[in-house]
């Protein structure tokens, strides 16, 4: 990874943490939720965007992370509880992936959908670990023995974790393994022909994705202080999928942008509606309609998502600026030449 990109990512993370520190709890909570969602979106993008395997189990995997982190946190384990959540997510992915990855395309997608429902049911059933339908109350996360008590602290933790996750996933996606993901996505037959172990590659993508989904779920658990089965239903998987569609399939920055967009769009719509004095029920309906319409607009006009749109905009601005510079340089040269001739 180019150092320049790492530096830009670091500066952005520090800036967002800075905003969280000077914000009220409401804004800090949104930043924390957004960062946790972005980790989950990146992890899903590894499977869908990079490796071409559609998974609907993201919500359940996040749930596994939330319960494991919650139990570890309640037992007094500090930051490693987040790692435990990631490992649990990875293990569950291995269990799902070993049989399910024998299947391809839509069949694999349906297998993950089944896994989502089974895991949801287990959340209700495994009472000693999940507290059943009542949900597991989670104690504040202890970092070096000190419990995190404010939303600003959780926002800092979530953004820092997002930055580290991006570093790791970006590295994975640029080495041979990441290239193998993309070859598998483009064509399994061609991948086999190139000597890639397709099943192992797909399992690798699924396990890596599971780790970060679990990590994200762990963060969500600590941020909301409750892990309950209703919080990790299929609708969450759909939300995360929407984030990567809006942000851009096969793009890690796109996942982050998508998560930010999906998290912030309702907020911005709500504030605008309030400024326009719209009634609550109308405001809610407008919020949903705008969200749905924008997804359709992206799918039709820019299927590669906001990341591609920003990329294009950036290039256009660059071209225009360099065009202006060239023109300015040209006119200066002409001017100098003319002046030279005159003298």
């Amino acid at each position, binding site marked *: 990874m180019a150092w320049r990109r790492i530096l830009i990512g670091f500066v*952005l993370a520090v*800036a*967002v943490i800075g*905003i969280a520190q000077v*914000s*009220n*709890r*409401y*804004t800090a*909570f*949104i930043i924390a*939720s*957004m960062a946790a969602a972005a980790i989950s979106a990146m992890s899903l993008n590894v499977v869908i965007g990079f490796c071409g395997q559609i998974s609907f189990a993201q919500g359940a995997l996040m749930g596994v992370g939330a319960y494991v982190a919650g139990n570890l946190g309640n037992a007094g384990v500090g930051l490693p509880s987040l790692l435990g959540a990631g490992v649990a997510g990875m293990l569950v992915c291995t269990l799902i992936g070993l049989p399910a990855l024998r299947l391809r395309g839509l069949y694999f997608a349906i297998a993950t959908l089944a896994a989502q429902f089974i895991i949801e049911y287990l959340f*209700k059933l495994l009472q000693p670990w999940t507290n*059943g*339908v*009542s*949900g597991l*109350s989670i104690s*504040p996360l202890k970092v070096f023995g000190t419990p995190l*008590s404010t*939303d600003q602290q959780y926002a800092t933790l979530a953004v820092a974790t997002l930055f580290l996750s991006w570093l790791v996933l970006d590295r994975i996606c640029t080495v041979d393994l990441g290239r193998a993901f993309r070859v598998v996505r483009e064509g399994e037959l061609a991948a086999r022909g190139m000597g890639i172990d397709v099943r192992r590659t797909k399992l690798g993508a699924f396990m890596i994705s599971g780790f970060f989904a679990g990590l994200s779920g762990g963060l*969500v658990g600590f941020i*909301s*202080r*409750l892990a*309950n*089965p*209703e*919080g990790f239903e299929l609708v969450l998987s759909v939300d995360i999928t929407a984030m990567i569609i809006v942000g851009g399939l096969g793009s890690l*920055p796109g996942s*982050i*942008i998508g998560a*930010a*967009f999906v998290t*912030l*769009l309702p*907020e*911005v719509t*709500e*504030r*605008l509606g*309030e*400024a326009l004095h719209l009634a*609550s*029920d109308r*405001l*809610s*309906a407008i*919020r*949903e309609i705008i969200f749905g319409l924008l997804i359709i607009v992206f799918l039709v006009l820019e299927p590669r998502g*906001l990341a591609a749109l*920003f990329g294009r905009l950036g290039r256009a601005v660059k071209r225009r600026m360099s065009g202006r510079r060239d023109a300015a340089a040209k006119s200066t040269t002409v001017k100098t030449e003319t002046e030279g001739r005159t003298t």
Partner: protein
Amino acid sequence: MKTIFGAMALGMGLAAATPAAADITVCIWGTITGPDALVNGMAYGFRDYFQYLNQTKGGIAGQKINTPLFDGRYKLDEELKNYRRCVDEEKAVLVGGWSTGAAKALRDQINTDQVPYLADSFSADVVNPEKYPYEFIAGATYEQQLLIGLRDLAKKGGKKVILLYADNEYGRGPINNVIKSGAIKDLGLTVADRIEFRYDTQDLTAQMLRVKAAAPDLVYIQASTPQAIVALRDAAKAGLPASLIMGNMYNISPAIPKQLGAAAEGFRSIQMYSEYGAKIPAQQEIDAYAQKNEVERKDVYFMKGWFKGKVVAAAIEAAIKKAGGKVPEDLAAFRKEVRAGLEGLKDFDVGGITPPVNYADHQGSKQARISEIKNGAYVPVGEWIQTK
């Protein structure tokens, strides 16, 4: 990333631009859109009572009440977000929350913030004045409602009950609590069967055939209106009368007789608040309000909302009175006094929505009566019964 900051700046800018409309804010959220939106009269009624006070009495002690109403969408993260907005941005003196999940997730936060929180949940898990001194509910718990139904059955000589409930906390939690308490045995009743179903169920035919085979004297549903509609529809298919079935206070929606017609005749529910249109003083207030404003929901849930408005207004009034007739400048102190004001309500007249209430135990009314669908409308079939 530019979008993130742009949108955040826009959001924060708008937040900062929002004017402080009044010195007193009671911040509310409900399910404006979401799975239990059918009962969101609880949020509208709560808000409308303060609008009524603003319009007819100039607010409380001369101060208008600001009542922002947000949509919690029955999603935990949305509700947690709303809570933070209410406490930090809106500077609410009291927060009107919605679900059991949120009330539980926020317990420690509420203790730390020391802000009075009136939940729409009836879960026994959120009522504990010693552990959670700032959390309040507005009526009998689900467990107490179930016991009313069971007492009624025992009184009429019934023996066997079937418990039909949703597979979430709202469904399973109270059923487990009542069974564990031994109250069913104490009443001389037996549980013929326990039938759990998915909260989003669309068909309960198989379950109703199972009920028929067990031949119970009562089927008690612990679920919401949409599930009660499915249960009653499929009970009719199985040849079971609606009079065999009883639901909790969330099954007293006009949607049930409206959608099912004759199949709903005889269905009974626990009624904790007077029905909309009852001849009580509170209804006169609502009618006066309705002359100039639109009432979003004309049902018993709106009455619950109005009830909450009345008790919270009384608590705020008591707090202002204690501060010498002025709104305390220190919000933290004001919140504490509102909490004390709520706890101090004794034999408080709520205009007939419920019998007079005491709020020392953070529950308010603990009385309920049974209501039955007769000729397409809910009709109370008994007097108010004390649940404890």
